[in-house]
């Protein structure tokens, strides 16, 4: 008599559950509001529960079942991630819950995923894509583009990356489930911030003199004085940036300038 094959073979992966298109649409729209209840205690936790909820309705017993309530409680607990890359977590967690993955594994997965999704997203989007697209649009302004063109250019460029990232995240999270970690090693996520940093540095170099020239609308001598003054001031700001926030310094200096102009 031979032993049953099931005792020695690797357990077959759970089949991918399927979700109706309307559920996907609902999840995606909710992702746009994932930070709606952001707070200093559970951070993005409530938002994750809010986004996963349409998928959890597929659990046995529906919204009144014990499985749904347990999953909702788990998914609405503390979580932290970049808001765009949180779509990876939403996709993976929805898949895990619908596949019946044990609760302790899901909780360990949530804990492990939070850090990387935050740091990768911050470097890629807030410190890369956003300043890059902003500087490209400022360069377009400096080159004489009309207001409507500048605004449309920025929104189209920025949101092409924004929506692509959210859609990719949801898709990769759903298809890979708890095995999503290798996807975060994607060359775009790993090398993207450095490439974007170089591109944004070049865009800054192009945009700053062009934008200054258009705002000033004066002669070359005025522009030269402004750019040289800005270069000197920026060196000073780099030296003191840890001690003072630049926008507050700008506010104070412009307020003093306004007072001087009025009092003179």
């Amino acid at each position, binding site marked *: 008599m031979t032993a049953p094959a099931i005792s020695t073979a690797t357990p077959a992966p759970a089949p991918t559950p399927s979700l109706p298109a309307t559920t996907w649409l609902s999840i995606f729209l909710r992702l746009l509001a994932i930070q709606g*209840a952001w707070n200093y205690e559970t951070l993005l936790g409530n938002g994750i529960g809010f986004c996963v909820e349409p998928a959890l309705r597929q659990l046995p017993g529906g919204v009144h079942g014990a499985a749904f309530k347990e999953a909702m409680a788990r998914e609405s607990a503390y979580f932290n991630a970049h808001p765009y890359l949180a779509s990876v977590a939403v996709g993976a967690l929805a898949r895990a819950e619908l596949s019946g993955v044990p609760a302790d594994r899901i909780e360990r997965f949530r804990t492990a995923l939070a850090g990387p999704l935050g740091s990768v997203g911050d470097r890629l989007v807030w410190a890369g894509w956003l300043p890059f697209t902003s500087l490209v649009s400022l360069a377009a302004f400096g080159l004489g583009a009309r207001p409507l063109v500048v605004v449309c250019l920025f929104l189209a460029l920025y949101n092409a990356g924004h929506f692509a990232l959210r859609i990719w995240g949801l898709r990769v999270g759903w298809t890979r489930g708890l095995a999503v970690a290798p996807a975060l090693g994607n060359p775009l996520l790993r090398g993207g911030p450095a490439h974007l940093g170089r591109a944004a540095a070049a865009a800054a170099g192009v945009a700053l003199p062009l934008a200054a020239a258009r705002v000033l609308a004066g002669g070359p001598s005025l522009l030269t004085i*402004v750019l040289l003054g800005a270069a000197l001031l920026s060196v000073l700001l780099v030296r003191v940036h840890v001690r003072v926030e630049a926008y507050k310094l700008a506010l104070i200096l412009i307020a003093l300038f306004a007072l001087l102009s009025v009092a003179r």
Partner: protein
Amino acid sequence: MRELLPLSLLGAVVGLDVVCFPQMMYSRPLVAATLAGAFVGDAMRGMLVGVVLELIAIATLPFGASRYPEWGSAAVVGGALSATLPADRAGVVTLGVLSALGTAWVGGWTLVKLRQWNARLARHRRHALDAGARGTVIGLQLAGLTGDLVRAGLLTAVAYALFFPLAARLAVHWSFSGPLSRSVVMMLATSVAASAAWVIFHSARGARWYFAGGVVAGLLLLFAR
């Protein structure tokens, strides 16, 4: 001040975009100030304020729980104010930028208060959340979104109502010339942006050479024009 109510609505929608919904970045000063300027009849003057603010905003990245200025509603206030004041006054762009910076500072504080309020709401509903109550999760989300919409609308209304009469009086007594006023503001904004670019990008290998190359290209383009 007929524009106060529609501007407050615009400020509310734009302020909501900063954190809560949908983060498409139409709250960036470049967009929001231009929209506000167009709203009151002069998109170009709104955009001039937006460009200056955008340069300054590059230095304040919205990292997670950090406190940062709220540029959306602030840019609406600055852009609209600058576009509404008489065009022949020398200091209108400067005054628009100044009022926006003040609003952005206060706006950052209001965001912190909103987050504390969200936390208090969640704490009071802890038992329902632990029981997996669907209505509580959705309710908290909607309360947060509504709170942010109201916050941004009120901030815009109060800031515009305070700053508009003040700026109108200052504009009458403004003694510096237009070019000098713009030069000072632009010098500050450009220096903030350049220092921010250095702080953000200098760790990327070769970034300084890309920046230098960009400056050369920018100056050549200027010369060619």
